């Protein structure tokens, strides 16, 4: 369980995290979504006590991370920025971390095996690909068998097989009753992995809902194919309805139900070859949710440049 209470972090004049309140519950994968620069990584650094909050607090299993006697067994973390010395071998990196908690060498070899790095365990990390680096980071996170796992953009740099592996691993970890907190800017990935999502923009909380709920609440698009598309388009257009077209004869209608579109076509005697509903992807929902904060960012940048 991770609990943030009015968590705020300012770097000089910039507010990276702005009065965030959220809970990450055990037993499920909770996604942490937001555009780049929305404060996801900062929030994770605050959870781990790497940065100190300007105000507010965040606790892990009821205590500040640094107040745990064996912190690695409370939280295992993979941060977005690499946290590995490039001159050391993978195994020695893990052995050094293990020594702080007197974790056995056997466990080090076990996690190396779990992430599939046994064969390159004695190679210097500097020679690792991005994907191998991610796997080593995940091995380090799982080293002390933590109750909570935090992963910042874990599938960055992974090949499709690696992505699937991470996805299964995360589900497995959550299935064992662990708290899994996962950040990503890849919405499609979130839809597949996370049951619950926390959406942030410009450091503020935008949504804290079940993934399914988020998708249901999204407006869907009606796709209609007609040989008389331009005519149909004129009849459909109204202040509440937007019609776009990316392809001749195919209209994308937002703000109207398929029944309304069908009725309109019948009323004006227009032929319809295809009428279907396309559900909004999490990506679309996300874009809609965060568009304000992104626009605001752009505007403020213009302002400071002037």
């Amino acid at each position, binding site marked *: 369980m991770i609990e943030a209470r009015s968590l705020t972090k300012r770097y000089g004049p910039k507010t990276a995290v702005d009065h965030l309140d959220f809970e990450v519950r055990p037993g499920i994968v909770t996604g942490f979504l937001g555009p780049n620069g929305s404060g996801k990584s900062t929030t994770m650094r605050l959870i781990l006590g790497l940065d100190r909050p300007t105000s507010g607090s965040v606790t892990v299993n009821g205590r500040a991370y640094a107040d745990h006697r064996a*912190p690695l067994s409370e939280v295992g973390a993979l941060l977005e920025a690499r946290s590995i010395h490039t001159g050391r071998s993978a195994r020695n990196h893990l052995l050094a*971390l293990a020594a702080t908690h007197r974790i056995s060498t056997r466990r080090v070899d076990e996690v190396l095996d779990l992430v599939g790095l046994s064969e390159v365990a004695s190679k210097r990390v500097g020679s690792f690909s991005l994907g191998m680096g991610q796997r080593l980071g995940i091995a380090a996170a799982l080293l002390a068998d933590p109750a909570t796992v935090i992963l910042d953009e874990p599938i960055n740099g992974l090949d499709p097989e690696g992505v699937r592996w991470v996805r299964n691993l995360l589900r497995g970890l959550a299935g064992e009753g662990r708290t899994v907190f996962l950040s990503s800017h890849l919405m499609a990935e979130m839809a597949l992995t996370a049951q619950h999502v926390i959406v942030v923009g410009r450091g503020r909380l935008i949504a804290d809902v079940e993934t399914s709920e988020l998708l249901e609440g999204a407006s869907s698009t009606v796709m209609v194919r007609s040989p008389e598309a331009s005519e149909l388009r004129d009849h459909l257009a109204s202040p509440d309805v937007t019609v776009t077209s990316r392809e001749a004869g195919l209209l994308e209608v937002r703000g109207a139900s398929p029944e309304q579109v069908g009725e309109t076509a019948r009323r004006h005697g227009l032929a319809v070859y295809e009428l279907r509903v396309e559900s909004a992807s999490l990506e679309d929902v996300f874009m809609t949710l965060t568009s304000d904060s992104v626009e605001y960012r752009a505007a403020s940048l213009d302002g400071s440049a002037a």
Partner: protein
Amino acid sequence: MSVTTAPTHPGTAPRVTVSPVTTATVARSEWIKFRTLRSSWIVMAATVVAVIGIGSLVSYFTNSHWSSMTQIERLRFNAVDRSLVGVNLAQLTIGVLGVLFISGEYSTGMVRATLGAAPRRLPVLAAKALVFAAVSFVCSLAATVVAFTAGQSLLASHSVGWGHPGAVRAVFGAALYLTLVGLLGLALGFIVRSTAGGIAALFGLLLILPVIFNALPSSWNNTVGPYLPGAAGSALWTLRSDGNVLAPWTGFGVFCAWCAAALVAAAVELRRRDA
């Protein structure tokens, strides 16, 4: 690769046993970190080679050129100092090693893993200082003992033995001095968090500060000069020097105070600043 091999299940006894994080466990971790980096041993080897190699070379040429040395040169000659002259170069390499021990973690991001495992932070500084001091003292002492022995044998008829007044103090003192310079580098590395910055700060303190004081009115230089880190520390292991210097152990005490001040500043910065 499958998730079925993932670790423990809640409710069952954890398969991974952990112990609380203490300065002792962090020290073990830091020792692993130190010894598993090739650069640690390269720079340490450079330090040992500087102490022994330069001391031996200078001792050899002093003996072979004795007849062509001036009277003043002969008067200023001290056999113990001559064999330990390499410490002047070695202080720079061991200082760099001290800086690198922490700045390498900041440049690679390793420090986030380190502080994630030991979030109270101060044990990290304490453990690094302990491990570094232990390794440095052992290597430095081996180097100064060999340098003295080799140097004296190469000085032949101009040599002195272990019984020479101050010889043992100089040999042990040089090892202590090197260890403390390394700790000073470590502390500066913690404060500035970058390799280049740490080395610049260290060299500034040891090499540039005396030059600046030399350019000031001599009354200032004579008053303050002996208390500068390099001069104060050298008082312990240099038997013969020009100008005014502090008494050996007084000078060493002053140098310890410099290092302690740097370590306290490092501790404050480590606690206070975001990682």
